[in-house]
């Protein structure tokens, strides 16, 4: 293996929380301590020396980097204070940016300095949409009481498809589409490099059904159950936050999907399906419960992060906080909008709702470049781990 250390990569890691990475003296306490590390592929000792040697290409396609759930056990027990968990986090942040598409946007999402632009983009987009839509006025109390935010982007007498929905779908679906495409590109690239590095032959490949049933689905089940997260025993606090948060996202995804189906599909044939849900509608209840779970989850994570930072167990990085801020913003503005609707305060309500749209768009648009990207990369890495250990994961010669 010819090694050409990448000094810029080392600098990046040092700036992104891995400032102590070069302190590592390879004792492997971290690998022994890590509850997720396996006997066959222990980590993060090897990741530490690869990092201090600036071996970027090896690290961004190393599944172990993504399998880490960042419990911080390794950092707590590192006798040299090299903070392996922070280093792995820094590698992940670097990888998300590196795999990100378009590169300019990916780069933009790496620094707090760019926050004005990061917030500015959705603000301008949504504001312009609001102007274009013709809905740009603060409604009267009565109007607000009847329609809530349903006429935010105006209203047309086209019963099969609401104007508001049209604009929201236009904004959010495009953002998600960009994110989805970017993630797809990144994940496939990573998969290929991981396969090459693991020397997996291509003679036998699983079918799509095999892939989903044997590798992807079991990984998803594991993720939902938080099996690995729970193995990080020092992490019980974060599980208490992460689990409700994840369930909240699932809940909100269900509600959104239901709402989409109700409004955009059923609504085409049955116009009465349009309109806000009643408070006791089971989906509305799910939405509200999810919103509360989301706020609770993000609160727990916020506090836990603050605590570990104060204890010097983790570093304060934009990479970590940006996602916490984004989710907190989504939750606060979402629930805020609902409360303001009940309070019948249209002007404030509209402003908060505007912010909510901005926050949601940010979450979607920057998903592949921020910590949120772990949702895809870690899932893929877990699937890859199962793939690598299966009969498909044999080197070419053995196949």
């Amino acid at each position: 293996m010819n090694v050409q250390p990448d000094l810029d990569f080392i600098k990046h890691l040092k700036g992104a929380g891995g400032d102590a990475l070069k302190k590592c003296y390879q004792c492997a306490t971290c690998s022994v301590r890590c509850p997720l590390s396996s006997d066959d592929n222990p980590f993060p000792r090897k990741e530490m020396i690869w990092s201090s040697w600036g071996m970027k290409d090896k690290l961004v396609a190393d599944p172990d980097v993504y399998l880490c759930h960042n419990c911080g056990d390794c950092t707590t027990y590192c006798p040299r204070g090299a903070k392996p968990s922070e280093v792995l986090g820094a590698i992940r942040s670097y990888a998300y940016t590196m795999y990100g598409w378009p590169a300019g946007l990916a780069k933009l999402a790496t620094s707090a300095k760019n926050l004005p632009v990061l917030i500015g983009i959705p603000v301008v987009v949504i504001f312009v949409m609001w102007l274009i839509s013709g809905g740009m006025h603060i409604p009267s109390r009565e109007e607000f009481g009847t329609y809530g935010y349903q006429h935010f982007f105006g209203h047309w007498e086209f019963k099969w498809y609401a104007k508001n929905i049209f604009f929201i779908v236009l904004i959010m679906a495009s953002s998600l589409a960009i994110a989805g495409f970017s993630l797809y590109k990144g994940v496939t690239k990573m998969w290929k490099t991981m396969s090459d590095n693991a020397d997996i032959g291509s003679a036998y490949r699983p079918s799509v059904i095999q892939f989903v049933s044997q590798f992807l689905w079991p990984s998803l089940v594991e993720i939902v159950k938080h099996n690995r997260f729970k193995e990080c025993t020092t992490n019980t606090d974060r599980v208490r936050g992460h689990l409700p948060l994840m369930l909240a996202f699932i809940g909100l995804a269900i509600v959104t999907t239901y709402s989409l189906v109700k409004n955009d599909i059923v609504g085409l044939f049955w116009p009465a399906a349009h309109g806000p849900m009643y408070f006791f509608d089971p989906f509305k209840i799910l939405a509200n419960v999810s919103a509360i779970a989301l706020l609770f989850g993000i609160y727990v994570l916020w506090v836990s992060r603050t605590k570990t930072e104060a204890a010097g167990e983790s570093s304060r990085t934009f990479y970590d906080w940006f996602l916490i801020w984004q989710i907190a913003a989504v939750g606060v503005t979402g629930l805020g909008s609902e409360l303001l609707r009940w309070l019948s305060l249209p002007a404030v309500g509209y402003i908060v709702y505007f912010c909510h749209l901005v926050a949601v768009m940010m979450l979607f648009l920057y998903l592949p470049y921020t910590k949120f990207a772990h949702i895809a990369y870690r899932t893929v890495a877990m699937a890859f781990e199962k793939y690598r250990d299966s009969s498909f994961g044999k080197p070419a010669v053995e196949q």
Partner: protein
Amino acid sequence: MDKKYCAYLCSGCGIGDALDMDALAEVVTGEMSMDCKTADCFCGTDGRALIEADVGEGVNTVVVGACSPRVMKNEFDFGDGTITLRANLREQVVWAEDKPAEDEEPHAEAAEFLNETAADYMRMACTQAQKTELPEPHKLENLSRKILVMGGGIAGLTAAREAAAAGYEVTLIEKDDKLGGKANDWRQSFPTKSPWTDLEDNPVAAMISEVEGDSNITIKTSTEVARIAGGPGAFRVTMKAAGTETEWDAPAKVTGEERELIEKGEMENPNASLVDYMEADPNAEIHGAVVMATGWVPADVSEYEHLGYGAIKNVVTNVEFEKLAKEGKVPANVAFVQSPGGKDHDMDFPYCNSVTSMVALKQAQYVCEDNDEGKAYLLYQHMRTPGSQELYYKAAQQNDGIFMTKAAVTKVEENGDKLKVTAENTLLGEDLDLDVDMVVLAAGMVPTTKEEDTINLAYRQGPAFIDLDLFDGYADSHFICFPYETRRTGVYTCGGVRKAETIDEAIDDATGAALKAIQCLESTDRGVSVHPRSGDKTWPDFFMQRCTQCKRCTEECPFGALDDDEKGTPLPNNTRCRRCGTCMGSCPERIIGFTDYNIDLIGSMIKSVEVPEDDDDRLRVVVFVCENDAYPALDMAGMRGNGVNHMVRFIPVRCLGSVNMAWIRDALSAGMDGAMLLGCTYGDDYQCHFVKGSEIANKRMENIGETLSTLGLESERCATQQVAITDYDKIPQIVNDFVEEIVEMGPNPFKGF
């Protein structure tokens, strides 16, 4: 001296409870015909006053039957004119009583046994008092207080500076045409203070100008030592222009046998062109002590063909790289190879050490300082950064451009205008190949004494320090206990010739060596021993009329203190002598002795022990105990109540090397049933304070064992055991086991003859 004796029996510390003090006093007053006084605490004010009053009234030889002579030294010191002898009734009699196990009845005569033992110790002490004379220190008529410092590097400069600062005249000689030594080529030096992370300016230039400006220091560059004759206080130093050969060069060692062959014309005299070693050079400059700081030379690394030194242009040694770094910029990509073994072994280059590890770290830092994108690879099997140097290692580790891994470097080859370094077994989990501009090999630091005599003594035992192979050629004699001492009294080594050292360490080391040289001068001036029997006023007296020129003393002296004439008659150099008595032990004619320690004195002590006949419960075993380690260990055993068999009588000796086999004969012919020697470990990891004493004694005991067999005595009646000072828990068992063997053998058949 007209002796007036008095013995003092102390009943304190449990002695009075265990012993019949009146009976003991009767032994002294009766058999030994000495006055005897008893009190319960002689080390206290009242007790001491009692003795002092007697001393005031003319008592000049005091026998104290109390605690070990190793304790209460000041309390029982009654001035230079008074001889004081101690019987160790406390640690080695009362406290060392062999008590029965819990479920066993004590021996019916246990109390008598203990009294008999105490009585014997009093008899021995009184005999010793009768035989001891006050020593007269041996003083030189003309003592030189000048110190010779060999070598003008960091260590030599420091030794010269420190000795001069203490008010001594110094001659500093340097082989090169300028002072400074190797350090002249160093770009920067290691950190010497907190936080131990920053390189410092090379101090050598400042040190040179300081030494050059010192009026106490005479500097002679381009100069070497041809030979050094004489001893402390009066070394005759012949100097010569560096690199030349003269008739005054130190003669090679010629053993006694070789000398005979040469005389018969059967062997060529290797020293034919040189002046005899005993001839005094009239032009020699007299010095009182020598500090040897001749340093080191870089090891040859061309033997490792796979690393390409000498064959590939940009493969250099650490010394060459340092010079490059001092002269200008170093290349941007450099691999530092610390270990040459490839796949075969993980050893470092010969003579690599913590200094070469530190040098690699320092030079890696140069690479990053001189180049924006500098990358330095450290491929090591071992990194050694002891003490605070670890902090420098940690700082280097933090440098983005320094990459370290344990690795077996298998090949260095040319690759276009670059070099390719291949390594296996790395911490990265894979084999490596690196593209670099330059490869730096960690050549070790070979002490100058490895290949050359260097000190060039005109001594009977040869020009070089002996047995340096035990220390890989480093000029050292006993690393743990006496770092500066060489096997030649008055010569103190420091710096790279003694041990691979950083500049900081060399400065400390040289300061110590300068102080040792001063200590040597001052002790020699007072006519006392320097080390390790510091302050001993006695010296070996030879009764030359009876010498048979057997040359055993000249050959066996561990310190080369004895020269000889053509016939082989020993010519003692008392200022070289360490007073171990190895010569006394070696002499078959028993003509060597000290005023307070000689063949007759110890022999009489042995004979003073009462040896009962026809009593199997009262066999007698004499144990000669080295007073450096074994004796204190016995005291400690006593303090812990570890019992020793009542048949044993201990006699402390200066060193097992001083034990003359006449004493063993004395003991056995006096009817004693066994004799044992308890001394220090010998061999490669010897602990003998006099280096060779216990080894020589062991050989002598093997020989006497054979003699005993021819007389029909079991050779097992004589034994030698090696113990350390920490063996206090084992020694009683060792001794008791020996007694048991003797008991099984039965009494000495010659008893009573």
